């Protein structure tokens, strides 16, 4: 049976991958995917903590469900924003969104 640390290591690696993707990629949709990855890693750690708890509780699973609902709302609004921006700029590359800089 895998231990709590095993799940936490997977969660940390997933979070690092998401953070790297968010900082390094130039495509707006890929950045949203990376955010989803980070939210999922936090979910995994919450459920893992809940599963290996000493006393019976279920707050971790409920928090995970709440995070999922918020992630769904975030993905909806984020993708709508990205589609609106891409429609007006004709590009998904975030480096080209520099109107406010000029």
């Amino acid at each position, binding site marked *: *049976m*895998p*231990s*709590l*640390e095993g*799940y*936490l*290591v*997977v969660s*940390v*690696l997933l*979070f*690092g*991958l*998401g953070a*790297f*993707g968010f*900082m*390094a*990629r*130039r495509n707006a*949709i*890929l950045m*949203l*995917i990376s955010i*989803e*990855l980070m939210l*999922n890693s936090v*979910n*995994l750690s919450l*459920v*893992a903590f*809940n*599963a*290996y*708890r*000493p006393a019976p509780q*279920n707050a971790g*699973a*409920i928090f*995970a*469900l*709440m995070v*999922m*609902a918020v*992630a*769904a*709302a975030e993905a*909806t*609004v984020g*993708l*709508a*924003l*990205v*589609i*609106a921006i891409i*429609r007006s700029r004709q590009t*998904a*590359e975030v*480096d080209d969104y520099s109107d406010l800089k000029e």
Partner: protein
Amino acid sequence: MVTLRNVIHSAIAMMICFGSLAGMYALLGAPIVAAAQVLIYLGAISVLILFAIMLTQAGDANLPAPFHPQVWFAAVTAIAVVGVVGWAVFQTDWRAGAVVVGVGVQAIAKALFTDYALPFEVIALLLLAAIIGAIYLARRPEDDERAA
């Protein structure tokens, strides 16, 4: 998956990752979270992202370089975060139970509608606001002119 050049390939890798996470939730004795993961992430968010990609990508010809110029800085930062948090994971005495204690679906449902009723309602309101906002944002601009 964050290094693939084609965005569609990244999205499919993301779906595989979400499916594996659903399996992990089932292993952790939380079948309701696994089911929600499959429904929300594999079912809804993946399809949403695939639709967004298909609406916005012109084709896979002459794809631009996938990475930002600051990719090395990003890699160093991500590895530093993983290192620090991973170190904390192994340094901490979690006092964890030896075996996985499952979460019953009935217990979750009871808690969700009694102890966590207020957050539940707030989440419902947030989702409604997100739906309205998304419809408003993603509307085609010419619809405005037609209505005006």
